[in-house]
């Protein structure tokens, strides 16, 4: 009874989350002595598919049909559910990415499977019971969820599990699903990618700024710092509410929840709602002129001072360190 993993790609290249979910599934498979079968939908090159073997997949089911070139929630859900049935897998793992959030509940409902969304750790599996830790209350707490259904679905939080190289090559098989045209009632018209920017939910490093920046005209120094670090940029809610930055950069309880290795908060006081969205970051750096800012209470490193003075100096110091 293999574990089935759905791996996402962007324009034919696997996303970081694809390697995370395969690595995660491989660790589960080793614990319960089974193997990992991945399913890829879209136009991905054969060698890219086979390379999933490096992370522990023994087989890759390749669905490459014109109609499925871009993500269609209903159709992808039907195909993955069909693959699950045809492989006899009882456990599906996918990423709790933006697409995964639409896909996982749809597949789970189709199969009457229990779903652990936002899983943070490896599950505990004994007999047919599976428990797993997940986020709750917007990262202000965690819950241990027990899935009691026959088929089970885990949607893994981005950045929650380390990518591990373990194996060799995977065999690639073409999978031809039964396509139901009714599953194509949504039509993708346009995809706009900000290709020069690091994707915020997947970023290893996030540079985030708040009202302390005083206005959108001052974001140049934030972007420069992010560039040096190869980081994604983010902001606090008041900043996106004021229209200084797009909503897609708003990090916090009612925005995007991030868990990078390094989160640098600049001119953000640290309201409880903001902290909820970043508290699972591994290392937090806070730069703020107010020594009483609540953010310092959860930070690992801090600098008290004028952000307009400190940020350019920090960018220079990082450039020197990187030899740029």
């Amino acid at each position, binding site marked *: 009874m293999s574990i089935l993993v759905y791996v996402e790609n962007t324009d034919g290249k696997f996303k970081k989350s694809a390697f995370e979910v395969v690595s995660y599934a491989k660790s589960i498979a080793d614990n319960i002595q089974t193997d990992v079968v991945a399913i890829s939908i879209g136009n991905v090159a054969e060698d890219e598919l086979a390379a999933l073997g490096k992370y522990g997949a023994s087989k890759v089911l390749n669905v490459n049909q014109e109609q499925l070139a871009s993500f269609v929630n209903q159709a992808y859900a039907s195909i993955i559910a069909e693959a699950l049935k045809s492989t006899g897998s009882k456990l599906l793992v996918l990423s709790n990415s933006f697409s995964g959030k639409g896909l996982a509940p749809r597949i789970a409902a189709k199969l009457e499977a229990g779903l652990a*969304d936002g899983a943070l750790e490896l599950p505990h599996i004994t007999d047919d019971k599976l428990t797993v830790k997940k986020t709750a209350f917007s990262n202000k707490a965690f819950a241990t969820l027990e899935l009691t259904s026959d088929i089970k679905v885990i949607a893994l939080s981005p950045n929650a599990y380390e990518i591990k190289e373990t194996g060799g090559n995977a065999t690639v098989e073409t999978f031809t699903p039964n396509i139901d045209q009714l599953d194509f009632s*949504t039509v*993708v018209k346009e995809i706009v990618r900000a*290709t020069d920017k690091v994707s915020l939910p997947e970023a290893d490093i996030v540079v985030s700024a708040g009202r302390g920046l005083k206005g959108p005209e001052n974001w140049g120094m934030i972007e420069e710092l992010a560039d040096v670090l190869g980081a994604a940029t983010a902001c606090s809610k008041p900043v996106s509410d004021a229209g200084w930055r797009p909503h897609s950069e708003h990090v916090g309880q009612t925005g995007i929840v991030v868990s990078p290795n390094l989160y640098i908060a600049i001119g953000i006081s640290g309201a409880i709602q903001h902290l909820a969205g970043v508290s699972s970051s591994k290392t937090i*750096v806070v730069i703020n002129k107010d020594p009483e800012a609540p953010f310092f209470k959860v930070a*690992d490193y801090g600098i008290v001072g004028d952000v307009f003075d400190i940020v350019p100096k920090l960018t220079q110091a990082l450039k020197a*360190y990187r030899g740029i």
Partner: protein
Amino acid sequence: MKILVCISNVPDTTSKITFTNDNTAFNTAGVQFIINPYDEIALSKAVELAEGGKGTVTVINVGDASTDATIRKALAIGADNAVRIDAAPRDAWFVANQIAAYAKDNAFDLILTGRESIDYNGAQVAAIIGELLQIPSVSIAKKVEVASDMVTVEREIEGGKEVLTAKLPLVIGTAEGVAEPKIPNMRGIMSARSKPLDVVEPFSVELLAHIVNYETPAPRGTVKLVDATEVEKLVSLLHDEAKVI
């Protein structure tokens, strides 16, 4: 156009989260409950779409009588009528089943939910309703436009956005940007008292999962402060000590 908006009754965003009964139940003592912020955005969008006699807005909540205050606020924001399924909201699967059953009997054109609730963050309800009703669902919508029976939705994707179209009926999980949250005015508050709020009996649903217990994050250590004149030291600490650069 008949619009159904699913609302959830959640702890205020400033709430301190604690648990009782040996960490198996959320401690509601002293907690103020509000409309889930994302659901408020969905509701505001629905009211906007129905303005000028272009449609009706029904709000639906799965909850016991304690959620009536939240439902009345939704009516004050501009919903025409409300339905409460009289049951504790056990999980997304249970809630979505109750809502889908009601929606099936009442033929809504557009069903809106928030992208996720801020208590369990499942982002599941919209997609499960879509599957149960066999209609399309779009999650994390940043923009919604309706022209006749065609809906254009802008959806967030990693590192960009995707624009898609779909015909009604459709379920959409809405995020920030879809509409500005509406603040109820005095007229809305007064009229909300007399708007219909139907209470419907739930049906039983076999649960597929349950929460065993909760925990709160371990406190982080104390901050290490670096002098503003020694910024280079921070770079060394991030490299040598934290090993993140």
